[in-house]
């Protein structure tokens, strides 16, 4: 029995939706263990989401409709992106050619934009501070993302994510190319910035002055807060999937629509995401948070690495 392609595509979105909070919970647990604590249970984020959906939601005085629409827009974007990137399969799925990789990053940026506008809409000081900080740092990481995308485009000769993945997996020498490795490193650094981990932001701190991304969601409550929290967990998982399936370890994907390969693909994907999460946690516990003005240097280092990646492949043939 084979699943129809659009069913498989629905599975892709479903995998991301269902397992994203679980990955977050797993990362929190590992982080706590590394710090010597017992930590929350792995399924805690699901319970948090359930609790939040049951609470009432409030909006600040003077906030417009955008404040309430933004979490929905963001969630919708995060539901769309898994349609475009190779999550479970090596072959293209319908609607997979709806957007290329630039389109995918545009949709992610749209989500961030919506949340930032909502945060600015509130008029509260901390959320506005978080919104402006996030936008600034996103502006700095955009060139890095672009150069990473250019590198992958040069490496594979296409900008469709599915075709990119198949080129990368074709041989060992493709994986070892310096341009590829440099682009991976740059993307990893961008992921650290976008998912707000050390050395950019303390993930679990409650100190508002140090917050960059978390401060944006301070004013939302109830189901909207739940959607935002779910959305950011999904964004994290999507970025991890990009890193894994395009760059680092694109093996284990299903080559057909039969149930068993699909199931194996789901399981390996979740495990790989957890592995990346472990790496992120180790980095989290090894370094200290950078001061705010040093974050630009961090992003500049990522920019340097990504430009070198482009240079080596464009001018060096490597």
């Amino acid at each position: 029995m084979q699943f129809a392609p659009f069913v498989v595509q629905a599975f892709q979105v479903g995998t991301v939706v269902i397992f994203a909070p679980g990955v977050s919970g797993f990362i929190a647990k590992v982080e706590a263990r590394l710090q010597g604590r017992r930590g929350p249970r792995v399924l805690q984020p699901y319970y948090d989401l359930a609790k939040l959906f049951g609470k009432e939601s409030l909006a600040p005085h003077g906030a417009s409709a955008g404040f309430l629409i933004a979490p929905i827009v963001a969630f919708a974007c995060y539901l769309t992106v898994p349609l475009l990137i190779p999550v479970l399969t090596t072959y293209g799925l319908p609607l997979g050619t709806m957007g290329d990789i630039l389109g995918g990053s545009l949709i992610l940026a749209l989500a961030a934009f919506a949340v930032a506008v909502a945060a600015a809409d509130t008029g509260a000081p901390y959320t506005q501070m978080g919104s402006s900080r996030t936008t600034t740092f996103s502006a700095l990481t955009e060139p890095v993302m672009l150069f990473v995308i250019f590198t992958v485009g040069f490496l594979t000769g296409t900008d469709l994510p599915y075709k990119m993945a198949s080129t990368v997996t074709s041989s060992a020498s493709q994986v070892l190319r310096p341009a590829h490795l440099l682009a991976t490193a740059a993307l990893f650094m961008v992921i650290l910035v976008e998912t707000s981990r050390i050395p950019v932001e303390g993930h679990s701190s409650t100190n508002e002055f140090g917050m960059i991304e978390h401060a944006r969601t301070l004013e939302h409550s109830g189901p909207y807060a739940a959607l935002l929290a779910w959305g950011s967990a999904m964004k994290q998982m999507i970025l991890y999937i990009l890193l894994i399936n395009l760059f680092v370890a694109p093996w284990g994907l299903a080559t057909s629509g039969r149930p068993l390969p699909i199931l194996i693909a789901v399981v390996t994907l979740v495990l790989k995401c957890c592995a990346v999460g472990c790496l992120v946690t180790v980095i989290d516990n090894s370094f200290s948070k950078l001061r705010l003005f040093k974050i630009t240097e961090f992003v500049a280092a990522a920019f340097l690495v990504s430009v070198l990646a482009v240079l080596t492949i464009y001018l060096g043939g490597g």
Partner: protein
Amino acid sequence: MQVVAPSAVNAVASTIAILVLLVEFGMLRAGLLRSQVRLYAVQSLIASLLAAFLGVVHQEFELFILAGLSIALKTVVVPLVVLRLVRQSGTAVTVSGSLKPAGAALIALCVAAFSFFAVGRSGLKVDGLSPTVLGSAVAIIAVAFVLMVVRSDVVSQAVGFFSLENGVSVASLVVAAGMPLILEVAFLFDLLVAVVVFGVLMRVHHDQHDTLSTARLTDLRG
């Protein structure tokens, strides 16, 4: 734009060369004298690893000897000499420069891009290894020049010169891989002599000017 990848050997060699270049950029951004010297030690280690790797690939024993010697000299002896001077100079801890690290890094990036471009256009035929390795060697030399120009203390300038020699040795691995061992050893020992003299002059400078900074060396003009 090559969709066809270079061979795995090529790819690993290119990656190691790029790593050396990245360490060079790291030196540009280092804020402490000590970290700069340590980065130089790391850079020499990686460059020697490239020599050893090429020795494995081409089955040449001489390259192993070269790698071993250069690790002994450039990773151990030279940083020790320089670190001893830094320790003896007392208070000097940070680098001094005329540009912020970010500005210097941008300039160095442009210079490195130009080096890659120039190597691609120079028409040098490099058989066996991809042009990336030669391009990154020339980029290392160019960024080392930027380092020497931008910094204004003797230790940073000296370490910049040593890393320039590292860049030349990476280039020699690509372009002149068959050079007789005796010549390569002569280069290494000559570098060692130069390091000793650098050390002596750094000490003389420190004795005379009471500082490691060269920002005040403006007496001789015209």
